[in-house]
């Protein structure tokens, strides 16, 4: 089936370059959903730790490998992004910072804070 209508289309998500605020908004939601499943992994890891040495040994093998470290790094990055953008939402809830001019600034602050917090956490835990 082809598009027969000659009228202009509204911005199409697949070709429309979303502004930073919109990109950060959908990433915030995806991050939140991903973290729900991360919480499931946290509980499973605690179960393995409670179950005894064998179950934990398997998990530990993965966590100390490079793949495990990259995975843990990404998890902390996603956590910090959701935290920082969540704080931004809490500020918006107080009806502050909603002007178009301040959205770009607060977006950049969130992205900067996400990287600074992630890197400093790993630096402190090194």
């Amino acid at each position, binding site marked *: 089936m082809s598009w027969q209508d000659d009228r202009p289309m509204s911005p199409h998500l697949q070709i429309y370059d979303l502004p930073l605020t919109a990109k950060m908004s959908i990433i915030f*939601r995806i991050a*939140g*959903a991903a*973290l*729900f499943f991360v*919480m*499931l992994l*946290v*509980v499973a890891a*605690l*179960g393995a*730790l*409670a179950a005894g*040495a064998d179950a*934990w*040994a398997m998990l*530990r093998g993965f*966590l*100390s490998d490079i793949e*495990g*470290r990259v995975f*843990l*790094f990404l*998890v*902390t990055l996603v*956590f*910090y992004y959701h*935290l920082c953008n*969540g*704080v931004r*939402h*809490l500020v918006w*809830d107080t009806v502050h910072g909603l002007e178009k001019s301040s959205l770009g600034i607060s977006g950049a602050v969130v992205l900067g804070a996400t990287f600074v*917090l*992630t890197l400093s*956490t*790993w630096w*402190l*835990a090194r």
Partner: protein
Amino acid sequence: MKKGSSHFLAQRVSALLLIPLLPWFCFALASLPNSSRADVAGWLHSPVNALALAAFIIVGSYHGALGMQVIVEDYVSPGVAQRILLLAGWAVAIGMMALGPFFIFQIFSGP
């Protein structure tokens, strides 16, 4: 209070509680690659860590279930599928809220 208002408020209050817990938990995650089983178990033998981790799992799962509920309500049209997904989200969250602290207590009181 209307259902939407209490959901809004619960999401914000749980978010506030998670603000201090998150950096603490991320630091624990970052320490994991260099920790042995004894290190992690020893860390959970401290009542402060055990209680903070239990609080993180309970509040985090609750906050997560509130969020997953909004996602399901936004993208799945009302019907049987939506009801099943809403139930599943809350069931998983309640399971995590119960099992997480249970495992923590086992490790806390174990060797």
